[in-house]
C-alpha cells in the first residue's frame, strides 16, 4: 500500500466553486481520484461537474460519511478556517494548497491536527500523489509514474523536475508528498520518512530540501536512528544569500542557520546520498538499489 492516500481515499474539495477549485477538481477526477463533494459557504445546493456543493463540511460528511480527506482551494484569509473546519470533521488527511496563510494561524491548526492525529499537508504545497491511485493536489500528473520511490519535497516545481527525471529512468514513485514551502507545515521530513519506512511499497526515499529552518538537519538525525531504507537528498539554495526569502516564506537563511551547506553536511553525516544536481538522482538511486 502507499502512504497517506490510496484507492480508499474519498475526497472533499473545499472551495470547489472557485476557478482553481473547479479546474483541479476536474483534473483530480480525470486522474481517478474519488471526489465525492465540495464546499463553498453560501453556495450549498449547487453542483460542480455533477459534484454536490455544500455550505459546510459537516453537511458534506453527513451526506458522505466515507469522506476521509480534504483539499483546500480557499483564499488565504479564509483558508485557516477551512483547515480548522476539516479538522473539526475529523478528516484524516487535509491538503492545504493555499499560499500566504498567516503564520500564527498555521501554528494553531498544526497543533490541533497533532492533538487529534490528523495529517495536514502544506500549506503552500502542490499536494500529495500516489501515482496510478490517487492524486490530491495540483501537480502535473503525467510526470509521476507508479513505483517504489517515496518522494518528499519542500518545493513544487522542483518536485516535478525530479519526478520527471525518476519516471524517465524507470523509477516510479509510491507516493510523492509536497510538505509545503511555509516555515510552519503540517508534516515534516521526519513525519514522511516515518511513513515510508514502514510502507511495504516503498524501497527508497528521495528528499528535496531547501534553505531555511532545520528540518533537513533533524531528518538527518532521525535517519541515523530510525531509517533503514536508502535515502537520496537534494538541497536547493546553496547560492542564496542570508536574510532574504527565496520565494517560499520558509526559504530563508537566518543568521548562520538554515544554510544548504549545513543541511547537506548533516545529511551526508547520516549516510544519505547527497546529490548536487537534480539530474544526478537516477544515478544515485541506481547505485544504492544495486548494492
Amino acid at each position: 500500500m502507499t502512504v497517506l492516500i490510496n484507492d480508499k481515499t474519498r475526497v472533499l474539495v473545499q472551495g470547489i466553486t472557485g476557478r482553481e477549485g473547479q479546474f483541479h477538481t476536474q483534473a483530480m477526477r480525470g486522474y481517478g481520484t474519488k471526489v465525492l463533494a465540495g464546499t463553498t459557504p453560501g453556495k450549498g445546493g449547487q453542483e460542480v461537474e455533477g459534484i454536490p456543493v455544500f455550505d459546510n463540511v459537516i453537511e458534506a460528511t453527513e451526506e458522505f460519511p466515507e469522506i476521509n480527506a480534504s483539499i483546500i482551494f480557499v483564499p488565504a484569509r479564509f483558508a485557516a478556517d477551512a483547515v480548522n473546519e476539516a479538522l473539526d470533521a475529523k478528516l484524516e488527511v487535509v491538503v492545504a494548497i493555499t499560499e500566504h496563510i498567516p503564520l500564527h494561524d498555521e501554528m494553531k491548526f498544526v497543533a490541533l491536527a497533532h492533538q487529534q492525529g490528523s495529517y495536514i499537508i502544506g500549506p503552500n504545497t502542490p499536494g500529495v500523489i500516489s501515482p496510478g491511485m490517487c492524486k490530491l493536489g495540483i501537480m502535473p500528473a503525467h510526470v509521476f509514474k507508479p513505483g517504489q520511490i517515496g518522494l518528499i519535497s519542500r518545493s513544487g516545481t522542483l518536485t516535478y523536475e525530479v519526478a520527471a527525471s525518476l519516471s524517465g529512468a524507470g523509477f516510479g514513485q509510491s507516493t510523492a508528498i509536497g510538505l509545503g514551502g511555509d516555515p510552519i507545515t503540517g508534516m515534516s521530513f521526519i513525519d514522511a520518512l516515518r511513513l515510508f519506512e514502514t510502507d511495504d511499497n516503498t524501497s527508497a526515499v528521495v528528499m528535496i530540501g531547501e534553505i531555511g529552518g532545520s528540518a533537513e538537519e533533524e531528518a538527518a538525525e532521525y535517519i541515523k536512528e530510525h531509517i533503514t531504507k536508502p535515502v537520496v537528498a537534494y538541497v536547493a539554495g546553496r547560492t542564496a544569500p542570508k536574510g532574504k526569502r527565496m520565494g517560499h516564506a520558509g526559504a530563508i537563511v537566518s543568521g548562520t542557520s538554515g544554510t544548504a551547506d549545513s543541511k547537506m553536511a548533516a545529511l551526508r553525516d547520516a549516510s544519505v546520498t547527497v546529490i548536487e544536481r537534480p539530474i544526478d538522482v537516477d544515478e544515485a538511486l541506481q547505485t544504492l538499489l544495486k548494492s
Partner: protein
Amino acid sequence: MRQFEFEAKEAFQKVGLSIPRGRVAQSSDEVEQVARELGCPVILKAQVLAGGRGKAGGIKRAETPKQARSLADKLFGMEIHGHLVNRLLVEECLDISQEIYLGITVDRTNRRPVAICSGMGGVDIEKVAKEHPEKIARLAVNPLMGLREFEARRLVKAAGFKGRTLLHLSRIVMQLWRVFSDNDAELTEINPLIVTTDGKYIAADARLNVDDSSLFRHKTLAERLEKGVAELTELELRARELGMTYVELKGDIGIIGNGAGLVMATMDAVHYYGGKPSNFLDVGGGATADRMTQALDIVLSHPDVKGVFINILGGITRCDEMANGIVASQKTLKREVPMAIRLIGTREKEGAEILQKANIPFLETMDAAAQLIVEKTRGGEK
C-alpha cells in the same frame, strides 16, 4: 516585514512596556532640538531595516545638543548594509544596572512559539547561545493556549531570576507576548531590556518582525508596505506589485523560473557551472505571457546583468504562454543580452513551435541551459 525600531517601540508602548524618552528626527536641526528637549547626553540611533547597525557605526552618543547636531550631520545620508539613513531616533541615556534579553520567536522545529530569556542582554543572543547555552532559558508556548503567566514566571525563573525581579520580568514577558500575538509577529525582541540604577525596567532596543501573510489584518502596515517603506529594493517592490517574487543578488546572470524551489535550483546550477546569479525571480504558478514579459523587464533593469537564464517546467504554467511572453519581449527589451531558455512540460510542443518561429533557441535540460548561459556570459559575447 521588519519594523523600524521606533515603530516596534510604539507597539511596545501600546501594551504598557516602558521605552526610553525620545523621538524620531528627520534633520540635524530637529536632532539638536530633541537633544535639547530631552537633556544630554542622548543617544542617536539610525533607523534602518538592517541588523548590525551598532557595529556599522549607526549608533552614537552625544554629550551636548551641538555634538548631537554634528553627529547627525554625519549619520544622515550614511548607508548601512545598503540602507540609507534618513531618520534618527534620539533618546535619553539610561543609567544601566543590568541588561537582560527577552524574545519571542517561532520555533519551526516544534511548530510553535518559543519565549526566550537571558541575563546576558545587550549582546548578540546567537553568540550567547553558542558560548553560554546555560545562560539562556527557553519555553515552548502551546499555540492554542497562548503564553500563560505561570509559564512566563517559569521561564524567567529558569533564566536565574528571583524575588521582585522575577515578578517584574514575568509581567514584561507577558506584555511581550501580547506584542507577539497582537501583531502576528515572526519575532519580537527586547535586547537589551535595561534595569536602571533606580530600578526601572526599560526596553532600550526593540525588534518586531510581522508576518507578511498576516498583513490583511494589519491595515496600516499593509499600507506602509505598498508605499515601499520596507526592506525591499525598488525592483523588488515593483516585482511584488506585479505579483512576482524578485530578489536582487550580486552576480551577473539573470534567473527567471516558475516555482521557488526550481528557481533556487536554477541559481545553484548556474553556480555549479561557474556562473553567478544576479537575481532570484519566480514568475509564480500559472503565469501568463504578459508576466514573462514583465519578468524579463525587471531582470534586465538590473545594470549588472550580462545574460538571462529562463527555466520553465510547465505544470499549471503553460509553455506556450511563456514562449509568447519571451517572443513579445524581444521587441520591447531595454537591451539585448544572451539568453538560455529551457522549456518543458505542459504544452511544450506548442511552446517550442512559437520559439522556433521566432528563431529563438531553447534546450530541454536545466544543466545544458546552465552551461550555455555561463559560457555565453563568460565569453564576453553580447
